[in-house]
């Protein structure tokens, strides 16, 4: 086993994969939803989030909501339309 390959599993174990708006993203394990929004520079008040098909109505809970590997998130907002 090369040195590089021994480093990879360590790095992977501290990360997890989830799907955000249809695209897979890797984020640090243990991140809350608030952490993810902050990393995306998104204000929770201006978006609506669906997690695994369920709309998250309580924005205050975002800081406590720990994301899990394999989560599927949809982050939507209002855009121009007729």
């Amino acid at each position: 086993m090369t040195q590089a390959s021994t480093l990879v599993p360590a790095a992977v174990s501290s990360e997890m994969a989830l799907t955000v708006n249809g695209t897979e993203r890797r984020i640090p394990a243990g991140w809350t939803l608030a952490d993810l929004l902050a990393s995306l520079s998104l204000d929770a008040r201006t978006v609506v989030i669906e997690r695994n098909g369920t709309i998250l109505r309580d924005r205050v809970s975002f800081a406590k909501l720990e994301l899990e590997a394999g989560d599927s998130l949809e982050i939507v907002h209002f855009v121009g339309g007729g």
Partner: protein
Amino acid sequence: MSHADLISSATLTDPQPFSIAGREFRSRLMVGTGKYASNSQMIEAIEASGAEVVTVAVRRVDLDRSKDEAILHHLDPEHYFLLANTAGCFNAADAIRYARLARAAGFNEWVKLEVIGDQQTLLPDTIGLLEATKTLVAEGFKVLAYTNEDLITALRLEDAGAAAVMPLASPIGSGLGMLNPYAIRTIKQRLSVPVIVDAGVGTASDACVTMEQGVDGVLMNTALAEARHPMRMARAMRLAVEAGRQAYLAGRMPKREIAVPSSPESGKLRG
């Protein structure tokens, strides 16, 4: 106050304020927010239109931030009534999902419900529309249902609890104007809930003809956004909607296929 002002403020007020589901609105003209060249152009046009109800769409946030799409950076929700649509939904389940997401934004429980049945014409899937209307009404939504000019569908939507029925003048974005005034009049005559014509208006005369059918309001987007001068067209639409409404209330003269002189036949000089 001048004599003219007294007449316009008292005698000519609309005997029936524009209200949907018990909420009164200041303008019978509703406008969309899509397809403008810029956000500043959109705001100018909406202001000039005098509209209170403005429609918005629900879409994924562009996480790469390639463009500034968030409409609420530009539209003050205190000043406008935001009406979310379910545009782009091709079945009842998707439309219901979009409506729920829109409500979770926290502004109101109203939705302009679209269930599209065909990509090329964007004509409504009236079966999916009825299904979604029933579900959303049961969940407490105020549903404004975008439909075609079919009376029976309109009646079924009213029965299903729609707060307003929105028949099209012609297909979305076509600008073809009012293709079937007879059908629109029939719908208006038979329904108790407000009838708001949505889609197809291309220019001011279309809006005026639409309002002359006696409908409660009209919703448009492309006619403003794709005009060479959106703000000026918005002003024209505002005047046209008001003119059409007044003409409807005034009651037009009968059409005759013969001439009838306007000046007296008597008292003419004889040679």
